[in-house]
């Protein structure tokens, strides 16, 4: 599962509220779609949980359902307390999970 974390805006200070965009390459199969060749239903396969952590403290926990678009975006606000590491852990309903990190480096 490829992922991408974007902090917006790029430049921010401690105390600023920034947006954290988390994207993942994931099929987000609903379980209601048929394979064109076999005619069989494609089993549901979707990200079902995402946790955002800053210095290992939970900021936001998400329960995600198959209605999010393929290659989904999840965006939250975050009030930057200072320097640290942002960690996002995404897990899907087949038990695959991926951990992505980004450095939080306020300027000034």
């Amino acid at each position, binding site marked *: 599962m490829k992922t*991408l974390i974007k902090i917006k805006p790029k430049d921010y200070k401690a105390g600023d509220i920034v947006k954290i965009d988390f994207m993942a390459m994931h099929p987000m199969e609903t379980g209601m779609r048929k394979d064109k060749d076999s005619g069989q239903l494609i089993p549901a396969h979707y990200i079902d949980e995402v946790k955002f952590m800053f210095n290992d403290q939970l900021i936001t926990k998400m329960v995600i359902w198959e209605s999010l678009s*393929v*290659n989904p*975006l999840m965006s939250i606000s975050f009030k930057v307390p200072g320097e640290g590491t942002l960690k996002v852990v995404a897990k899907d309903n087949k038990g695959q999970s991926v951990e992505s990190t980004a450095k939080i480096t306020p300027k000034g």
Partner: protein
Amino acid sequence: MRRVTLCAVALSAALCGILNADEKLSMSDADKAMYAELLESNPAEMDVAEGEQLFGDLIGSEAYAKVLGVKEKDLPKHIAGFPRYVDSAKKVVTLAQTIQMAAASVGKPVPKLESKEMVKMSAYVKSLANGQKTSIDVKANKHMAEMHKLGQQVFEERRGGRGLSCNSCHSTDIVGQRLRMQPLPDLGAKETAAAGTWPAYRMTQSQMVTLDKRMQQCMKNALLAEIPLGSREMVALEVYVTNKTKGNPISIPSVKR
């Protein structure tokens, strides 16, 4: 004959909703702004990042610049002018074809034009020219002039069981009409910047698609035989369509419906 004509028009209107521009059916500015934000968090960015890695492993920009016969620092400007006539190929080629040439030049396996790796690599290479203006020059030499002329022929040639051409839906006098709910875009308009914004993430397909592949998809849906990727006709079509948007900025990857 007149009755048949009227029936056909009524049918076409019923099927496809050909309507003149009507505010109720158009997206509001607020709606458009929401879609524009998709550009800021585009899933295809992950593909372009992967393309950078694939390209670095396969070729690298130094060897690539050498194949194109330019300095590494001039790559962005040079890339903005594709498709171009390339001496070593002795023909007009697309960026994807230059990646094939470069892979061959360093003794690596040549990626197929339709491969997923090629889509990602060609998007990465074109993204090096982000911010540059599309600078194709169809008068640069006789090869380019020929390809531009051929491209126009292909664009206007009515083919398939229904006798459609690219021009059937993309002529300048039909722009703004609707195909179902979709306004037909002006391929040359600044806001469309068509050729400068492919490869793009297609929302309907949830994947990044190249310009030539997009044109194939258009042909398929209009019941035309698909012109093969890399063929003289397809490259010519890319030359013709790219020239329509000359001067508009390159921005890769974009997001399309």
